[in-house]
């Protein structure tokens, strides 16, 4: 065959006369996307995404179909070519229904692949599950215990009965990981010679350090306290997260080669400026360690303290067990910290613990389970009350303290959407207590961070995408930034994203993340009405009368059997082909907007009601009509089991009434560029 010379994107290439433009490009590592072409079968030219520009041709040419000729000058990178690719993808996506990612992953601030780890647990592959979770959360045993699990709130299993116990599964995986002789030890890239300082050894700082270390960087964590763990260690009580569990996970992180420098406080032992000078980049993950003020007369009194401070003192043993024996304690606030304070006070032997909250139980920001468990442990809830004055009798040290409580009622919804508490005029109540602990919010201690720009609420300003501060080499994440304190997994999610930004920064690349294009679909209970109802497994909780007396963990992990059963409840409602899907890969590569033309997919219900292929899962609403399966089955396999039915926009692919001749070779599923045909999930 004759050799020919063609030019693609300015490169002179040698090809053969009978070769297509696509073949020559592929042989020379020039990428031309294609969705409907395969070497094994005849040229078809349907998708049009491979179209390229040829000098002298007014039209775009389909690279998969046009045979190259000597002297041809091709460009695959012009605006016209890229626009065509984008249009093809945007049109295909407008007729493609599915969920690239399941709602659990989308809801998780760390984007954990819950569906993935559930599947691995269901198969008994705990080690692989641990590796998968660690890609997003390096502290699964700890987070599995403390996370308020937005994943479960989003879980579609609720459309059948109850959400999958994803947090407990994560805890199970984490426990498995720390319990085995060789826990997950990820591959660390070649040493980069770059040095990064992390300020703060909490979940955010530890995670950022971990993901940067994996990239081969030298990472030092500067921590003010004597031990790492941050709020996980000093804010979350032992009964929820045992110190030993946390320590084992921190050890795993440290073993990747991260340098821990404890007892170093910024603005005291070193300065941000110094760290900036001595490192290639700095991530500030300092947390929010100052209690918000109660703003009522008497809060300066000796027996009035803050929740964060109280929990810290309890965790470090400054407050000894049984200190509160016979005492009455009032805890102000309705969040998770307030619940932790209440329940810690119970465990310190308090006779009575009051929770003072100005709205009703329905509006409490704390997790429902936390409230219920606190109630079971004897906490007295005084909802719709608000402290207006704390007084101590004649001398400041006189006890009891008297709290004047304003009785409240719910008025119109406020900006948060919750009904605002309004004082009922003239209605008050007083209670007498020995101590008042206010847990109504927490803030960054700004000392040492004066160089950084702050919001009017006193948090550090960090870019929402890149986490950069006013210094390009200083990044900030977690409770110390922007909207302030949030759940631990949020800080972990930010940590991984910030680590990516820092990594790009270190190599002089654009620190902005590339936009993520995803396909999403609404589902209703009807979509899952074929599923058998299966009860949700919960981790067993100890009897309240027993557990309130000690600091031992209140509930235990799943057994392997429970975990596997629970994991198998996962509906796997996220696309199982996401990581192999060419459509979404190209959509991201060419920045195609999936909803540019709206999404009104054509009706494919006929396919579902007809016969199915053996061992193949058909999801017709994902079909992009590339025809690869139809043609491969006919031309390569020689059977013609699949066929096109209908015309135009309404065309569907389905077994042409002869699925019994299917050889079960699975080639249709292998060649399908999307998740429309997949080998049945074993």
């Amino acid at each position: 065959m004759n050799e020919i010379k063609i030019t693609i994107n300015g490169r002179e290439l040698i090809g053969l006369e009978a070769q297509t433009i696509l073949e020559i490009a592929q042989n020379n590592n020039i990428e031309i996307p294609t969705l409907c072409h395969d070497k094994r079968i005849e040229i078809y030219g349907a998708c049009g995404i491979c179209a390229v520009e040829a000098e002298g041709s007014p039209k775009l040419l389909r690279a998969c179909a046009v045979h190259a000729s000597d002297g041809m000058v091709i460009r695959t990178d012009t605006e016209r070519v890229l626009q065509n690719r984008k249009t093809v993808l945007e049109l295909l996506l407008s007729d493609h229904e599915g969920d690239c990612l399941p709602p659990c992953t989308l809801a998780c601030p760390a984007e954990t692949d819950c569906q993935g780890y559930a599947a691995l647990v269901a198969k008994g592959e705990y080690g692989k599950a641990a590796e998968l979770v660690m890609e997003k959360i390096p502290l699964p045993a700890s987070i599995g215990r403390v996370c308020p699990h937005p994943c479960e709130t989003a879980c579609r299993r609720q459309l059948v009965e109850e959400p999958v116990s994803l947090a407990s599964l994560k805890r199970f995986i984490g426990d498995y990981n720390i319990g085995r002789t060789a826990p997950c030890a990820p591959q660390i890239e070649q040493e980069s010679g770059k040095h990064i300082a992390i300020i703060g050894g909490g979940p955010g700082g530890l995670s950022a350090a971990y993901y940067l270390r994996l990239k081969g960087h030298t990472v030092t964590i500067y921590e003010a306290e004597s031990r790492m763990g941050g709020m996980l260690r000093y804010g979350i009580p032992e009964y929820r997260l045992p110190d030993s569990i946390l320590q084992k996970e921190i050890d795993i992180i440290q073993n990747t080669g991260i340098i821990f420098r404890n007892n170093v406080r910024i603005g005291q032992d070193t300065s941000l400026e110094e760290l900036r000078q001595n490192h290639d980049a700095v991530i500030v993950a300092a947390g929010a360690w100052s209690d918000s003020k109660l703003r009522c007369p008497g809060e300066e009194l000796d027996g009035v303290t803050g929740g964060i401070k109280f929990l810290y003192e309890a965790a470090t043993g400054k407050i000894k067990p049984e200190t509160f024996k016979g005492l009455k304690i009032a805890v102000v606030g309705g969040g998770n910290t307030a619940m932790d304070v209440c329940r810690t006070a119970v465990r310190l032997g308090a006779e009575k613990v009051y929770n003072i909250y100005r709205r009703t139980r329905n509006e409490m920001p704390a997790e429902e389970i936390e409230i219920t468990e606190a109630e079971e442990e004897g906490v007295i809830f005084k909802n719709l009350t608000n402290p207006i004055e704390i007084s101590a009798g004649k001398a400041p040290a006189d006890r009891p303290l008297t709290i004047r409580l304003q009785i409240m009622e719910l008025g119109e919804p406020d900006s948060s959407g919750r009904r605002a508490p309004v004082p009922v005029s003239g209605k008050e109540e007083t209670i007498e207590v020995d101590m008042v602990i206010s847990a109504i919010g927490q803030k960054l201690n700004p000392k040492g961070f004066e160089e950084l720009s702050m919001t009017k609420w006193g948090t550090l300003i960090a870019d929402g995408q890149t986490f950069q501060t006013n210094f390009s080499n200083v990044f900030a994440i977690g409770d110390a930034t922007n909207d302030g304190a949030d759940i631990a997994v949020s800080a972990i999610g930010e940590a991984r994203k910030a680590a990516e930004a820092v990594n790009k920064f270190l190599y002089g690349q654009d620190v902005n993340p590339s936009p993520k294009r995803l396909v999403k679909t609404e589902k209703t209970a009807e979509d899952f009405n074929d599923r058998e109802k299966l009860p949700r497994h919960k981790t067993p909780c100890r009897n309240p009368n027993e557990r309130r007396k000690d600091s031992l963990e209140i509930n235990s992990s799943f057994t392997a059997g429970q975990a596997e059963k629970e994991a198998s409840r996962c509906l796997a409602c996220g696309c199982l082909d996401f990581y192999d899907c060419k459509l979404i890969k190209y959509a991201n590569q060419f920045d195609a907007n999936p909803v540019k033309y709206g999404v009104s997919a054509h009706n494919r219900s006929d396919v579902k009601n007809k016969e199915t292929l053996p061992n193949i899962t058909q999801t017709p609403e994902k079909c992009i009509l590339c025809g690869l399966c139809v043609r491969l089955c006919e031309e390569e396999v020689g059977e013609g089991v699949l066929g096109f039915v209908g015309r135009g926009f309404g065309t569907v692919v389905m077994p042409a009434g002869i699925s019994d001749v299917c050889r079960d070779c699975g080639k249709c599923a292998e060649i399908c560029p999307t998740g429309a045909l997949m080998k049945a999930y074993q």
Partner: protein
Amino acid sequence: MKTSPKITVGKGSCGIAAGASEIFEILSNTIANHAPDVFTPSVSAVGCIGMCYLEPIVNVDDKTFIKVDQKGAGEILKLIKGEENHAENYEIRREDLEILSAQTRVALQNCGIINPEDIREYIEKDGYTAARKCVLEMSPEDIIAEIKTSGLSGRGGAGFPTWFKWQAARNASAGNSVSPERKAKKYIICNADEGDPGAFMDRAILEGDPHAMLEGMLIAARAIGSDEGIIYVRAEYPLAIIRLEKAIVQAREKNFLGENIFGSDFNFNLRIKAGAGAFVCGEETALIASLEGQRGMPRLKPPFPAQEGYRKMPSNINNVETYANVPWIIRNGGSKFAAMGTENSKGTKVFALTGKIKKGGLAEVPMGKTINDVVFGVGGGIQGDRKLKAVQMGGPSGGCIPAELGNTQIDYRTLAQTGAIMGSGGMVVMDDTTCMVDMARFFLDFTCKESCGKCVHCRIGTRRMSEILERICGGEGRDGDIELLEELAENIKQGSLCALGQTAPNPVLTTLRYFRNEYEDHITGRKCTALQCKALLSYNIEPKACVGCTLCAKKCPAGAITGAVKVPHKIIHDKCVKCGECVNVCKFNAVAIN
């Protein structure tokens, strides 16, 4: 003694639809029962003469009677018998005859004149003399040269030079890609899958003069060296199929088809394949796929059908009108054909005039006439003497040409400059009551439904365009919709594999080019100035004009009109379904639409 008059009844599909069969029965039965010894007039059925708006048409010798009903048939019988009659009431008016005199008939020369079911009438008109000449006297190269001289180009839409196709098919080696079990051969295919809404010139030829087309195919077969022809005709043309079948049988009896034609060693056989009505099967590669029993989907070219066509063998495909021109060209010489028309477009072209035109029907004119010549000269102008707004040329693949460009010459190149195309010759005439957005929506909806579904651009792109037009006409147009339409249109033109997709955006692009303000009115002004898009209309009763007759309130199907006797009525807009019934029934013109 009187000579027997020759009586013909137009029995094309248009005539039959207007009642010609009944008239034919009356005339032929009565005449058959009449004392045959006095005189023996013959009644024969002919095809469509092209004056579809005057059907049923009866000719008695050189007299033409129009819109003939039962009573008219009686008068005509009286006339034939020499009795006193009022047949003159049915006689064609002089100005209507202009529709014929303004034309130059080549492809349609025998349509409406000869009986298509009697080969002798075609032979009387020098039929098959061209074929005889080609088989016995001319070499294939001579034939192709003659066609080249004529400048004939494909009349189906693309306007590709006919001689070039023939030459390519002639030069293609028949042994190229032949499987061992099949004999190497070439095919002649006739594309009679006329699918454009508002186009019916091919049907008229098939029904009115099928032999002209058969003879053209025969000549083409001789030119490229083929011995087998296939006519792909849409099943929606049953009368055409019947007449074609009869014509083939008769031609075979006369040995114009079959073995050793005209005593030579030239063999040619023909068969008919009925297509199931997919518009896309008019695209030649889809047509071939359909002939082969495959799904009617176009494929990429090259290879062109002339290289690799039906059964992967060299095939020449032309449409009906193209073939029908061929015998005339051979008989009269290519240069006589080329003498008509413009520099780049030779000969004549048949147009199907529809829409708001006074004299709807078929018109064959030399290339180079202007749109106004056809609309006002041949077509007699706009119904109700309203204003011409635009002409949609070339069906759903074509574009609209606004009235101000009425002096545009009809040839391939000039039309293309306007954004429209010649296409197969459909001409939909629109007056000021036509909403151009709605018109574009109609055609887009058509192509969207007719898309085969193979290419992404066409399958989904036309659908999305159609949805956008739908919402603009539905009063829900959004800012940016025009730009979105333009962007999609360009991308669909670029990215589609076959002409259906590549041309589908044309109606939108041309209406945007010439009537952009109407789109803007719909979207930003929420009004349809042509008063066609219901969602944008509001009906109101003018209190001064309303006398309170209550008729509209009684007739309103939605109960949306309130009022009492002798009190001006009112329309409740929330209830109004915009059916227009109040406008229709009001005797005082009191209902205004705005």
